[in-house]
């Protein structure tokens, strides 16, 4: 690494503060009683408790996966608190009821929950530790028949929808972390777009972990009825702590015939310090099911977390359905990411497109792991995959593990991957034009990630680009 690229200094993780608020927190540990307790705190119907218990019993029989290319100390599942809620949180009433301390917290995070000050056209569901503290623009959305509320609220208000779709894409038995989530999930967002409705604004959930030693287990369920369309954003931050915190979420998307769901994530959980102390363990199961002519598009910018284990997937069930995955994953310091996607082609003439950009700096290890599977009946399936890795510094690693399984000869598949170092000649050129080394690196990285950023909604794209700059600061040093 040339000394010229080695001049940047790290900036603090700016979302690392702690909100001092009274919380209703249960003691650490996991048992059937804890599952029952969480369920009773949310006054859930019996069918949901039964489902949780089935998930818990299945989880007990499962073992933590060891195949991801990440290494971390064993997680003591009995040391985690599975529920924590700010005491003042009202049961999902209007925003006026929200504790000012919480409003202040979200303001500091740049997510004002006050509707007047909102960025026009984005409705937000704010999730603080285990509960949703407020959802904006609900009334406006209701005019179009759109349901956008916290998961707990949906369980009470729209049980028929939850019962129909919960676990229909990610069954509780799907994997170790999905089973854990199904047993103890606390809150999350629910979104339902009726037939033929194009959602007039971006929907967004902002996840915040605050309490110490708690895990966050949220569940997001988005249903787009026939011909509906929605764009959904997700952001996440957590305080700086020297202990690791567990985050195991499940996201299920259902796009019925002709529907479109676009799901964008900017993940900026606390990543731990430069020695790998602290940070979030992020084990997420995200999957969508696309019916006839439907389209599901995942865009993710993964900059945070000490460990990332995440494969947003699409089951291309219906004929002519389309799945997309655009990802930028950045690891710096001691971060490790094993992320990618799965595209399962079941219907005829299904298409999938994968663009993955991995950036490794510091001592970070970045793995792309993606599966493209074409089932025997998926005539005319088409996949294009491009995964590029950029290495900054000589102590990091970039790994590519594609799994391509083709069972139909009418399928056409292309996979391309490359790994290169950040171009010193490019940096030299930009510096020679009067740019600082820092700006040069961030410009090159922005160019490298452009294909993915252009898929993000505009405000998010700007945020993502800045975030990337911050994450990489100090990496060239």
């Amino acid at each position: 690494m040339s000394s010229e690229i080695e001049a940047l200094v790290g900036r603090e993780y700016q979302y690392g503060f702690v909100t001092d608020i009274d919380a209703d927190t249960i003691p650490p540990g996991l048992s059937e009683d804890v599952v029952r307790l969480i369920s009773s705190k949310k006054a859930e119907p019996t069918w949901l408790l039964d489902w949780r218990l089935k998930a818990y019993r299945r989880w007990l029989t499962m073992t933590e996966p060891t195949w991801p290319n990440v290494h971390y100390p064993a997680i003591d599942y009995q040391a985690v608190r599975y529920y924590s809620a700010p005491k003042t949180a009202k049961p999902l009433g209007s925003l006026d009821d929200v504790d000012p301390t919480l409003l202040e917290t979200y303001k500091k995070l740049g997510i004002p929950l006050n509707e007047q000050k909102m960025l026009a056209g984005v409705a937000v569901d704010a999730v603080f530790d285990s509960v949703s503290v407020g959802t904006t623009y609900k009334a406006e959305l209701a005019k179009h028949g759109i349901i956008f509320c916290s998961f707990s609220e949906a369980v009470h208000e729209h049980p028929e929808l939850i019962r129909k779709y919960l676990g229909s894409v990610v069954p509780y038995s799907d994997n170790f972390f999905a089973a854990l989530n199904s047993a103890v999930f606390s809150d999350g967002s629910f979104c339902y777009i009726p037939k033929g409705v194009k959602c007039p604004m971006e929907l967004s959930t902002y996840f915040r972990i605050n309490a110490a030693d708690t895990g966050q287990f949220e569940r997001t369920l988005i249903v787009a009825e026939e011909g509906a369309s929605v764009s959904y954003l997700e952001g996440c931050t957590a305080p700086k702590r020297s202990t690791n915190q567990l985050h195991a979420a499940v996201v299920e998307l259902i796009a019925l015939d002709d529907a479109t769901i676009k799901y964008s994530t900017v993940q900026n959980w606390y990543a731990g310090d430069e020695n790998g102390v602290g940070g979030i363990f992020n084990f997420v199961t995200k999957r969508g099911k696309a019916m006839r002519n439907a389209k599901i598009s995942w865009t993710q910018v993964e900059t945070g977390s000490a460990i990332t284990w995440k494969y947003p997937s699409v089951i291309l069930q219906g004929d002519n359905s389309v799945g997309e995955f655009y990802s930028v994953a950045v690891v710096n310091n001691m971060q490790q990411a094993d992320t990618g996607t799965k595209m399962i082609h079941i219907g005829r003439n299904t298409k999938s497109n994968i663009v993955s950009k991995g950036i490794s700096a510091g001592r970070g290890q970045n793995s792309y792991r993606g599966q493209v599977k074409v089932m025997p009946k998926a005539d005319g399936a088409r996949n294009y995959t491009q995964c590029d890795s950029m290495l900054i510094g000589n102590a990091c690693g970039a790994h590519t593990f594609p799994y391509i399984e083709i069972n139909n000869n009418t399928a056409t598949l292309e996979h391309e991957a490359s790994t290169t170092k950040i171009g010193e000649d490019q940096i030299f050129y930009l510096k020679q034009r009067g740019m600082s080394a820092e700006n040069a690196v961030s410009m090159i990285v922005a160019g490298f990630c452009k294909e993915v950023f252009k898929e993000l909604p505009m405000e998010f794209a700007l945020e993502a680009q800045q975030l990337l700059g911050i994450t990489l600061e100090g990496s060239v040093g």
Partner: protein
Amino acid sequence: MTIPHWQAAFAARAGGDEPRWLAPLRQSAMASFAALGFPTRALEDWHYTSLSSIADVPYTIGSGASSTTVADLTPYMINADWPTIVLLNGRWSPALSSLDSLPGGVLVLDLATAWREQPAMVQQHLGTVAVSEHAMTSLNTALMQDGVVVVVAKDVVSNTPIHILHVADAAAEGAARFPRTLIIAERSSKVTLLESFVGLADVAYFTNHVAEVVVGDNATVNHMKIQRESESATHVSTTEVHQARDSHYVNFSMAMGATLSRTNVYTVLDGENCGATLNGLYLGKGTQHTDHQTRIEHAQPNCFSRELYKGVLDDASHAVFNGKVYVHPVAQKTDGKQSNHTLLLSPDARIDTKPQLEIFADDVKCTHGATVGRMDEAGLFYMKSRGVPSETARRLLTYAFAADVLETIENETVKHALEQLTLERYAGSAVHPVIVARKG
């Protein structure tokens, strides 16, 4: 399940005239096999290939008895003037082998003679290159009966291929064979080797082959393999290579026989300025299962590797390609390229491909690519519009798809022989003479 069967076979071995140092090597290999057992699909390396079909088969240990004559082998000789070693049903056959044309400075011995006459050299290398934790390699080391040792002295350049012909005839039915190849190319030498596996009768048997290749400083080894086993046979072959500085190792693997075959090619580029070229072609038909696994380990800076595997799959055949390029933290300036392309001719053909890059150094240039597809309809249409019958056009395009990887073979005679084999499989007689004439 058949671990006791193989332990019994191991115990029954008459190891009378073997050197003493070999016994612990064999024993630890047997212990390792007993611990690992036959690989199952639960192992990441065997995710798409199951050996369960043979795990319970009580194979006998091949005796080598046979009535095969030189005339029977003529079609497989490729060039009768080349030094040829015939391992018949796993045993060296002096009667069928001919080493008269062996160039000076090249020593070719059977395994037993080698460890008697060149004990130091054999002990130094045998079992030290093939070190991957593989049950099949362990089983070979435990039970290897015969094999070939090739030693090329320093500065000797031999362009004439040495042909090692592994033959299985009707007598091989129900037997397992464990041939071993050890190739030592000393400093600045060059050698070309061809290993053929042929089945003369349609009988079921099990080949478990291990080759160890030591490529010295500045040496070049050109190593080709043609797998034409009986279509009822099971074939597992592992080639492990150790490369010293400035060396070049070139491997070509052609797989067209056996009901189930698995070929592993692993090389470690353990010196600066090395190059490794691993190419291959797999042709599947019927219900054949053809698996290739390669690993290129860049352990030192300034090395390059090139890899191109192509496959044509017909009927309900199934192929697997799993290629890994591994770059160690010190291996700066690594330049690696890997590609895998498969043509699916039939709706029931299947391919699972897993090209992998694991990179721990930053100043590298590594790429891989994979494609899977069917016959190019536009190309077919063009040829038909020019009056080429549909079926002929199809065969011609299939051959053309496979031909470019065959073009990479340096030895003209071998290249031509493999082109013929590919033609015979995909080009009907109508096209066949035309192409051959044109190539004239």
